[in-house]
């Protein structure tokens, strides 16, 4: 990557590129100069989609800030001002609010892709770590962003989440007071959350650039999980994957638009259209859907500190994946037993989300049997950690992978031969 032989045709561009080789950089990282495995499937679309989501959030966010007022007395009204009076304000705010959910949907699928095809394995550990850091930053950014409209869920969500830190031994209460800038969630809290909500996306952007850089050193993993052996295994990124990403982006935009234009408040909570009131707690405090699995883990542990530790551990354990997985094959395609556990893990994560959305005291009626959500949450939490701490290390080392194909090209040619008679 360091030495590019790219030469723009235009004389002036060539001179410019010699002094600042930014055109070479683009050519070699997103253009024909970057070669990617030729067998990437549609799961690989979600990386570029995540980048797209980040840009959408930054652009709409910058524009919303032109009208939003970060003050406890004015924030709620300024959001309504955006919704009612600002030209296209309703559209921009609905894109930003739903865009957060879209970003998380895309990133969850992107993470799952990595888990399924072993993209965290050597030589891509750094790439994976950067990804987990981006995910953590996203969680923080999303949480603080949800506080800004200063509705009831904003206020009480902020109260509950910041109170998690009171579980820290000895200095817990001091930490919470420090986070709040006072003795409760109030104007100082709102203002610092606003500042950080504006800052963190740019930190994420920087991390994303490192993430892409770290991707381009070893190159993309692929559904077979085997190494690229030569140019015959690859295609130029442009036009092959730009075309494929464009098609994926189109599908994604349709999905996104359906929410923005027809169900703009489906993923939000009605209580957030009531202005924050420190005197009245809503009947059910529910975080945004993308935190629900972790919220369920938090509530599954009977001890306050234990719950908080488990919740953070549930995310941080992703960092350990490169060491937990000891299989000879990267891709789950050749590991049927592991694959079953992995799908079960996905179902379990969704179940945790469902548990997180419900009150632990309520019961799930399953064919005549009543299970409390608390019990359900504990079982699901147990599987969550069992998966990482036992299933991955044991199954990956014990299960003998199916025979791996010799090369990517061979597999692609086999497919082409199969498809040929049909054409």
């Amino acid at each position, binding site marked *: 990557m360091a030495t590019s*032989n790219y030469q723009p045709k235009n004389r002036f561009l060539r001179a410019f590129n010699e002094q600042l080789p930014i055109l070479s950089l683009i050519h070699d990282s997103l253009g024909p100069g970057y070669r990617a495995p030729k067998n990437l499937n549609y799961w690989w679309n979600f990386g570029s989609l995540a980048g797209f989501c980040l840009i959408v959030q930054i652009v709409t966010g910058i524009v919303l800030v032109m009208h939003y007022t970060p003050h406890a007395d004015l924030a709620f009204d300024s959001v309504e*001002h955006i919704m009612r009076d600002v030209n296209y304000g309703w559209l921009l705010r609905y894109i930003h609010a739903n865009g957060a959910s879209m970003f998380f949907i895309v990133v969850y699928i992107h993470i799952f892709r990595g888990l399924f095809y072993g993209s965290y394995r050597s030589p891509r550990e750094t790439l994976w770590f950067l990804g987990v850091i981006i995910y953590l930053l996203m969680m923080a950014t999303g949480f603080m962003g949800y506080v800004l409209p200063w509705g009831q869920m904003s206020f009480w969500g902020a109260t509950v989440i910041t109170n998690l830190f009171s579980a820290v031994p000895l200095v817990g209460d001091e930490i919470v007071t420090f986070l709040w800038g006072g003795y409760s969630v109030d104007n100082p809290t709102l203002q610092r959350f606003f500042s950080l909500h504006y800052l963190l996306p740019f930190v994420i952007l920087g991390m994303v650039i490192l993430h892409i850089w770290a991707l381009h050193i070893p190159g993309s993993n692929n559904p077979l999980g085997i190494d690229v052996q030569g*140019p015959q295994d690859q295609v130029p990124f442009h036009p092959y994957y730009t075309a494929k990403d464009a098609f994926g982006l189109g599908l994604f935009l349709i999905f996104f638009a359906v929410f923005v234009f027809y169900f703009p408040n489906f993923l939000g909570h009605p209580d957030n259209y009531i202005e924050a009131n420190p005197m009245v707690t809503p009947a059910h405090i529910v975080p945004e859907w993308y935190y629900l699995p972790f919220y369920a883990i938090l509530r599954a542990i009977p001890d306050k500190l234990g719950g908080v530790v488990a919740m953070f551990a549930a995310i941080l354990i992703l960092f350990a994946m490169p060491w937990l997985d000891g299989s000879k094959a990267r891709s789950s395609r050749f590991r049927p037993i592991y694959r079953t556990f992995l799908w079960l893990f996905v179902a379990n994560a969704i179940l945790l989300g469902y548990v997180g959305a419900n009150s632990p005291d309520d019961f799930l009626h399953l064919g005549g049997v009543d299970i409390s959500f608390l019990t359900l949450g504990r079982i699901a939490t147990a599987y969550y950690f069992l998966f990482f701490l036992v299933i991955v290390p044991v199954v990956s080392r014990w299960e003998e992978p199916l025979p791996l194909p010799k090369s990517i090209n061979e597999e692609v040619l086999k497919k082409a031969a199969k498809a040929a008679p049909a054409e």
Partner: protein
Amino acid sequence: MATTEQGTSEGTDVTRRDFLYVASGAFAAVGAAAAAWPLIDQMNPSADVLALSSIEVDLSAIDVGQSVTVLWRGKPVFVRHRTPKEIEEARAVDLASLPDPQADEDRVQKPEWLIMVGVCTHLGCVPIGERGDYDGWFCPCHGSHYDTSGRIRKGPAPKNLEVPEYVFLNDTTVKIG
């Protein structure tokens, strides 16, 4: 890795600019342009700002020789009840001698009421009343002198003070904007 470019594919059917690619590109471009419009238009005045764009001023409390300054669209508007002497001065000027020639009759609807935006046409400062070499207004920022009709007479300002749209709703009420 990136340095090994496998021959150039230009000229083959892959990169030939046929209808499908042109149409795709055109749709992408139109879509991007359409998406940009809300991002730009949000900077234009919002509905509540536009709704505030006219104000009514009660003239009954302003005596001859007095003026009030009201805030209109975030800018000061001078409403001056001119004395006969001021009117006379304003109308006696030889138009040819003015940097921005305009008859006093064209700047007022009723001779005794001079209504104008109190923003210097040079760089936007607010001139001070009953000052300057022409008994009108004087801008302290860069020394522009305006006469009793608010016309520029001396100094760097290029134009007369702007007269906003206004109507007299009755003898004592004027609606600006």
